[in-house]
């Protein structure tokens, strides 16, 4: 009987989509790990210290992410934050849990979210039509969780006209469709 190779290969949620619309770009980021960290009751100071000691990160404000090198952290709830960082192997949660050494409760959110990096001169105009928040007023690093086209989304402003959009991987196709349609409606060709 012939040998059968059952090795599986991970595929990006949207197949690594990379679209150019006018001078704008929508690209899937498939190398990011996302780990949710919840702060134990009364453990705010210990959490702030752990973030500083392990990654040199400051505890993010409710609407502004903080960054150190390639790792970013965003507040998703009063006592919860997301750590987002490039990580090739599927053990991000274990790694974070060990480094935090009890300062927070961790849950792996990698591949639960699709991450789209959108950029270009029409980005604010495209977001304006599908996002209820005033993204033009976001500072660089500003972050917020909201609802876009009936889908929950987390926005992070990386630069003047560059954002990360995170949404549920289960509805990633619909989310991409919403973002792409909005760009096509506003893009100058």
């Amino acid at each position, binding site marked *: 009987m012939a040998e059968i190779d059952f090795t599986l290969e991970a595929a990006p949620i949207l197949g690594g989509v990379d679209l150019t619309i006018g001078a704008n770009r929508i690209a899937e980021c498939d190398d990011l790990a996302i780990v949710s960290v919840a702060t134990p009751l009364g453990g705010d100071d210990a959490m702030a210290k752990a973030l500083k000691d392990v990654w040199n990160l400051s505890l993010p404000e*409710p609407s502004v992410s903080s960054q150190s090198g390639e790792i970013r952290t965003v*507040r998703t709830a009063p006592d919860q934050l997301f750590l987002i960082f490039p990580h090739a192997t599927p053990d991000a949660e274990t790694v974070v849990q060990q480094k935090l050494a009890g300062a927070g409760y961790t849950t792996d959110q990698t591949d639960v979210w699709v991450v789209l990096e959108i950029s270009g001169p029409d980005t604010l105009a495209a977001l304006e039509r599908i996002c209820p928040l005033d993204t033009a007023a976001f500072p660089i690093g500003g972050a917020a*969780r*909201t609802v876009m086209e009936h889908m929950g989304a987390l926005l992070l402003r990386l630069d003047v006209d560059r954002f990360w959009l995170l949404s549920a991987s289960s509805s990633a196709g619909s989310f991409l469709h919403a973002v792409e349609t909005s760009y096509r409606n506003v893009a100058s060709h």
Partner: protein
Amino acid sequence: MIIDHPLLGPRDAAEFVYKGDASLIHRPDGMTATDDEMHDYVYLRDNPAGEHRELWYHEQGDRSWLVVTRNTLTHEISKVELARDVARAEGRGQ
């Protein structure tokens, strides 16, 4: 309608879910409350025409529970607080 979230600033009401009268914070102790007390907690609500304290949940946001003071005649919102701050101030959640 815009709800001015204490941590996040003004957010559209579409991000929130209405969860009922703020008196729901005062759940009686199920081990000691009488049937009448539990019945009143579960079923009886005031229905004011005017100022009303109510619970809103920021489902499409930071998942916080808020106590919103709203006028049911004008929809004017006069106060927004984190429900956990209200509960702690009233001696709950110790």
